[in-house]
Each structure stands twice: as C-alpha cells, then as structure tokens.
C-alpha cells in the first residue's frame, strides 16, 4: 500500500484552496460526497501524495465535530491486499466502517480505522480487476 493523501478538515474551503495553491497545489477534484455529507476538494502537486480538503456540508457530516486541521492519513491498497484481516493482525486499532463509496475517488470503496493512539486512517480498497484512481494533468479525476 502507499500513502494516497492527507485529509484536512476546513471550515473555510476557499481560504484553504488558496493556501494550498500558494504551496504549489492545484484543484484536481471538487465533489459533494453525499455518503459522508462533505464537500471534498483534492489538491494535487503531481508528487503522488495529495491533500484532501474536507468541508462539512451539513449537520450529518462525518467531520461536523472536528476542528480545522489534520484529520487522517489515507493509504491506497494494492490489488490483492486484504485490508480487513491484514489490519486485524497488526493489532494497532479497529476498522469501524463498512466499505463506503467515495465519489472523490471515482466511486471506489474506502474504510476508516481508529488507531490505538486515537488517530484515524483511511484505506482506499482495491477490488479485483479494478484500476487504481489517478488524477490527470487536466485536473479531472478518472
């Protein structure tokens, strides 16, 4: 697996986009996630690891109780990697969601885990025969 992105909660999306643009990133994906009730903007600098800006879209948002700033680290699984049993064997935390559809990643499934230190990580699952998500240079995901 590899690091895919760092999730950052923001209450001011425009300001956050400007901040990361000044750091050399550009907006690659901008979607409303109806499953987690967040607006998601992926900021990319062409170096592999992206910044995921997460803005709570309503009262059901999964980040409604989080302060602005770092929220999670996300790993993308490789084909054939079993996140469920593999993670359980490590005994470093617990996966606490069912696979959730992620519109920001072309509808791929993700799960979240809480680690023993109380921090969160996300895994982008790679189902058999599935191509991994990549962001094109024209700024759109596919």
């Amino acid at each position: 697996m590899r690091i895919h992105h760092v999730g950052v909660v923001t209450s001011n999306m425009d300001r956050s986009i400007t901040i990361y643009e000044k750091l050399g990133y550009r907006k690659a994906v901008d979607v409303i996630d109806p499953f987690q009730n967040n607006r998601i903007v992926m900021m990319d600098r062409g170096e592999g690891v992206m910044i995921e800006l997460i803005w709570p879209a309503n009262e059901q948002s999964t980040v409604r109780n989080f302060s602005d700033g770092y929220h999670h680290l996300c790993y993308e699984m490789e084909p054939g990697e079993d996140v469920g049993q593999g993670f359980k064997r490590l005994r470093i935390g617990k996966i606490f969601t069912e696979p959730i559809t992620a519109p920001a990643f072309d509808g791929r499934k993700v799960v979240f885990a809480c680690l023993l230190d109380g921090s969160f990580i996300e895994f982008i699952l790679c189902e058999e025969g599935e191509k991994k998500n990549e962001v094109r240079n024209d700024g759109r995901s596919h």
Partner: protein
Amino acid sequence: MKSVTMGEVIEVLNAAGELSLTEEQKETDITELGIDSIAFIKVVVALEEQFDCEIPDSKLILSDMNTLQKIYETMDALYEETMGRDNLSA
C-alpha cells in the same frame, strides 16, 4: 482476554473519552457528556487494548453502551463468553 473491573473501565473511558466520571455516575448517559460516534469508537479501541480483546461489531451500538454500567456489563459478558469458549476448547 483479561478480567474486567469497574475501576479499569472507568480509567479507560475517562482517558479515551476525555471525561472525569466516577463510579457514582455509572448510569450517566455519556452521549450527554459529548461522546459522539467518533469519540465512542476511540473508547472501544482503548477498551480492546486494555482488556486484550476484540469487541464484536454487533455490540458496537452507542445507545447500548452509553453508560459506564452498560460498558462494564458488555465487557464483563465478553470476558465470561471468552472464558467459556476457552474452557470448552481446553
């Protein structure tokens, strides 16, 4: 799995949930003290680490574990269940 005491459950709940509950408050609804579903999962992970166990997903319902007493009872029942299973397989 390790045996469960109310004192240890209080310690874990207070540390992971950032609370300051005492045994006298064992019927207090922790959701009214700010424990939401995310804080709850942190408590669950801390309980699993403390008592060296895995709490089944079927028990991970906040409304069923929303007081100190209910958490203690859940953990104690899990311990009894684990011990029973171990005795059967011995």
